[in-house]
């Protein structure tokens, strides 16, 4: 077996993940709560936190803001491709290192596609402020999937041939059936998964529109899952077509109704990217890379996160014209009769 990198589990080992489910209350109960209560109940210092969505689509932005408000230490972040989720958490670490810290990142990609690179990622990595482990999108997706399937690993082709195998816990083995080389990626069973979805009922049954990202796998793999949703609807409506349910209630621990919960990122059928806002936020972090002041970033957090009680108040600070514009663009992307 090639690659003898030391094996360790971040979050739960497969056996621990199984044991955690055995004792979990799986009843179909009302899981509605405030985001403040959900974060204080389910996110602990040192946790491996999985971030749902994809780049700046359906990122769990509201939940990351609440985490910043409450403060956190020594987190591990796990995601395939993410943008705003880690950016808001890492920006807080740069603005208030006494209050927020990330220890480790397991990722495939952290940037913002058309909106630019992630200044926070460059600062954290180039100054060795966090440890990290590179994977590919499929590697991480398969890791969550293995965790969701109750398996310790999945075989995949794509760590083969490159340096991802040299910098990660991938194992390359000879396939017992074909004799050819195959890569094995270890399961990821995070302590807590953060998801923003379009629709949920009070029990946590979720419907996702557009790309599922790896949200289903994260919900099934994580010890706890916090769901924020654009629409909180009746159980009868969600179960009208049971095939449409992407995440079952038993995989969810908290349901929080947070309209615009992925904003200024995009959410299918609700709003498109607020590209100007994303660029402006990134521009607050960028100067720090060149030794510049973090005052503007601190001021942003003071006003928009620490200075508000909840995410609704953050959204209330946005000009109505901007919110309506981003909704109107999405109404063109997804045309529907009211």
């Amino acid at each position: 077996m090639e690659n003898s990198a030391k094996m360790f589990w971040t979050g739960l080992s497969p056996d621990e993940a199984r044991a955690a489910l055995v004792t979990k209350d799986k009843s179909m109960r009302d899981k509605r709560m405030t985001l403040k209560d959900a974060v204080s109940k389910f996110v602990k210092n040192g946790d491996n936190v999985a971030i749902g969505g994809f780049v700046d689509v359906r990122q769990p932005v509201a939940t990351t803001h609440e985490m910043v408000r409450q403060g956190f230490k020594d987190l591990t972040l796990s995601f395939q491709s993410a943008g705003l989720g880690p950016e808001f958490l890492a920006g807080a670490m740069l603005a208030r290192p006494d209050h927020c810290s990330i220890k480790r990142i397991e990722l495939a990609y952290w940037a913002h596609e058309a909106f630019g690179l992630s200044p926070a990622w460059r600062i954290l990595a180039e100054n060795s402020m966090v440890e990290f482990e590179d994977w590919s999108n499929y590697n991480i997706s398969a890791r969550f999937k293995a965790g969701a399937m109750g398996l310790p690993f999945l075989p995949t082709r794509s760590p083969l041939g490159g340096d991802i195998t040299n910098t990660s816990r991938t194992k390359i083995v000879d396939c017992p059936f074909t004799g050819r080389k195959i890569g094995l990626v270890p399961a990821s069973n995070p302590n807590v998964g953060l998801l923003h979805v379009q629709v949920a009922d009070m029990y946590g049954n979720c419907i996702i529109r557009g790309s599922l990202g790896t949200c289903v796998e994260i919900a099934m793999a994580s010890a706890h899952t916090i769901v924020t949703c654009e629409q909180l609807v009746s159980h009868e409506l969600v179960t009208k077509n049971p095939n449409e349910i992407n995440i079952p209630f038993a995989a969810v621990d908290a349901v929080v109704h947070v309209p615009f919960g992925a904003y200024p990122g995009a959410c299918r059928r609700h709003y498109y990217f607020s590209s100007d806002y994303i660029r402006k936020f990134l521009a607050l972090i960028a100067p720090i890379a060149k030794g510049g002041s973090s005052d503007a970033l601190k001021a942003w957090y003071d006003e928009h996160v620490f200075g508000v009680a909840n995410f609704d108040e953050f959204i209330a600070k946005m000009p109505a014209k901007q919110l309506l514009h981003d909704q109107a663009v999405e109404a063109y992307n997804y045309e529907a009769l009211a």
Partner: protein
Amino acid sequence: MTASTDYTAQEIIVVAGSKVLENNKIVFVGTGLPMVASLLAVLTHAPGLIPVFEAGAVGPPLKRGLPVSVGDSKTFTGASYLQGLNAAFELTQRGFADFGFIGGAEVDMYGNLNSTMIGSFPDGYQKPKVRLPGSGGAADMAASCERTILIVPHDKKKFSEKLTYVTSPGHLDGSPDARFKAGMQGKGPYRVITTKGIFDFEEKSKRMRLLQTFPGETVDSIKAATGFELLVADNVSEFKAPTVEEVRLIREEIDPTGVFVKRA
């Protein structure tokens, strides 16, 4: 077909990229210029081209404008199949993707790409000089698309003898059956499109070979801008400048606000 006289470096890349694509094939499309190239192919010679986006959309008609993300809502509308990342990469691993477009900050003579870090490796992995975004889906496309098309701006430093980090493996060390022996699938890098020309990989050595020069470039100017020893095909030709109509399609139909294709 009137040749354009005011096309940009990115526009000729887009036109060259679109021409590599074949009608009725499935192409795995990354963010940026590959999206524009695929849309241009659909509007010109390949109306039956089927784009796949890694967030999950398969075969969307893209009638709602240019996506700015491979997870953009515009890729979801009208898609023939839409799940998530695992499904997109599983169908690629299975062999459904004929082409994949990938990029990187550095490329070597065997078409291996780096989009992870600049600095020293392995010692400096945790303290990179420049930290890049990371693989995203590029390593997956490199490992499992049947043929890959590489887009890299041509620069002596970027066309490097030795990569800092191999994010997306190409022909590896160029040895016979290297990809198969490593457990990978697909034929690997098929074409490289740069700001200076179009390249393929010589069959035996798997080394990058100049096929066509862009207007204004010569074999020597391209060799001089390449940090490794470049092979040159016997019958190097000049790639024709984009037509006025191709440039109009890019500027007016595909990317009217210049999201990915810069005017300057």
